C-alpha cells in the first residue's frame, strides 16, 4: 500500500461519514484528485480481494468504509451498534413524493397523500432528510421542498438518478401528469 492509500484508509476509518473526493485530496498537498481516485480504487480492490469484513462504498457525494451486510445481524445481536430507527410509512411516502416531484410544495404532497403532512414534514426536516429549497409562485408563495445529501447517504445512493425510474414501476407506466386529463390545478 502506498503512503497515499494508507493515509486515505486512515482518514476514511476516522471519519464515520462519507468524505468527498475534494476532502480526501486536501489531505495530502502533493496529491491530485486523480492520484486519490487511483488510491481509492486500490483500497477498494484490496478489501475485495483480501475478503475483508469491511468495504469501501461510494455514497452521495463521497466515499465511506462500512461493514459488510452479512455481519449486520451478528453485530446488532451483540449490541455493539444500534440500528437506526426505521422510517414510518407516512415518512417514506412523503419522501417518495418529494424525491420524484421536487421542488414540491406541502399542498401538492397533501394532495397526493390525501392527508395533512405538517408533522411528517417537520420531522423529516429535523432529521435533515428534506429541506426547503425555495418558494413557489402560487398563492402565498408556498415553501418548496427537496431532498438532501443525507437522504442519499441513508439510502446508500450516489445520486437521485439511482432511484427507480417511473417507467420501471409496475403500477404506472407513465408519469403521473399523463395519467388522465383530469389533473387538477
Amino acid at each position, binding site marked *: 500500500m502506498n503512503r497515499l492509500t494508507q493515509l486515505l484508509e486512515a482518514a476514511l476509518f476516522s471519519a464515520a461519514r462519507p468524505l468527498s473526493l475534494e476532502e480526501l485530496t486536501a489531505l495530502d498537498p502533493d496529491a491530485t484528485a486523480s492520484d486519490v481516485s487511483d488510491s481509492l480504487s486500490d483500497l477498494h480492490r484490496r478489501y475485495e480481494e483480501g475478503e475483508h469484513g469491511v468495504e469501501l462504498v461510494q455514497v452521495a457525494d463521497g466515499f465511506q468504509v*462500512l461493514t459488510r451486510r452479512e455481519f449486520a445481524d451478528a453485530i446488532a445481536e451483540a449490541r455493539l451498534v444500534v440500528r*437506526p430507527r426505521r422510517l414510518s410509512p407516512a415518512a417514506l411516502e412523503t419522501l417518495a413524493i418529494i424525491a420524484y416531484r421536487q421542488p414540491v410544495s406541502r399542498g401538492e404532497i397533501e394532495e397526493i397523500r390525501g392527508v395533512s403532512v405538517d408533522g411528517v414534514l417537520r420531522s423529516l426536516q429535523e432529521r435533515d432528510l428534506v429541506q426547503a429549497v425555495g418558494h413557489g409562485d402560487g398563492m402565498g408563495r408556498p415553501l418548496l421542498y427537496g431532498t438532501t445529501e443525507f437522504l442519499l447517504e441513508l439510502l446508500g445512493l450516489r445520486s437521485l438518478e439511482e432511484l427507480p425510474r417511473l417507467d420501471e414501476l409496475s403500477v404506472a407506466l407513465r408519469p403521473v401528469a399523463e395519467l388522465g386529463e383530469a389533473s387538477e390545478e
Partner: protein
Amino acid sequence: MTSIAETNQTFVVELESFSGPLDLLLNLIRSQEIDIADIPVAKVADQFLAAIDALGLNEAANYLDMAAWLMRIKVQMLLPRPFDDENWEDPRAELVRRLLEYEQIREVSDWLGSQADLRSGQYPRGWVPEQPDPGPPPVVVDLGDLQVAVERVLSAIPQPILHRVVARPLDVEGATRRITSMLAERDSLDLLELFGPRPTVADVVSVLLALLELARVGRVRLVQPRPFESMAIQRESAHPAA
C-alpha cells in the same frame, strides 16, 4: 403491510393503522382484486364507511372527506347517462387517477424503505477519536438557504412594524377641520363630542393637539367649569359663525 380481509360482509382489520384514506381505499380494492378501471363505487363506498367505522377513524377529517367523495361519486353513477355516450365523463376518473398516482408513490416508498433497510445493515465506524480542539463544525450555507431565510423573515414580520412604517395614525389636520366645522354651527361644544364612539389613543391625541393649536392661535377658548368636569370648547368671538 396493512390489509383488510372480507369475511361474511364484515371486515377483519389486521393492522390498526393506515397511512391515510387512500391507503385504506387502495387496500380494499386490491385485496378484493377489483379492476381499478371499473370500480364498483357503490359497494366500495359502503365498505369504506364500514371500515373507518371499525377502525375508529370515523371522526378523522381525511377519512370523512374520502367517504363523502365516494358517496358523491356513487350518486353521480346513478344519474342517467346522456344519449351520446361520447360526452359522458366517468365520475370515477379523478378517483382512479388519484389511486394510481398514490399506488405509484407506494411502490416507490416501499423501494425506499427496503433500500434504507439494506443500508442500515452496513455500519460506519463506531469509535470516533476525540479531537484536541474541535471548534465549531465547518459551515454549509448556500444562496438557496439564504433566499428561503429571507422569505421566512418577510412572512414572519409582525404587523405592527408595517403599521408604524406605513400608517399615519395622528391626524391633527383632520381633527382641526372637524372642530372648526362643528364650531361653525354652534358656539360651544363638549370635549367628549369631539371623540367618536370608540376613540383610539391616536384619535384622542390628535383632537387634543388640534385644540391646543386652535387655542394658541386664539380661535377657541377652553373652559373647564369645575375640576374633573368635562371641558367645554367655545368659539372665540373674533371668529363668528359664518
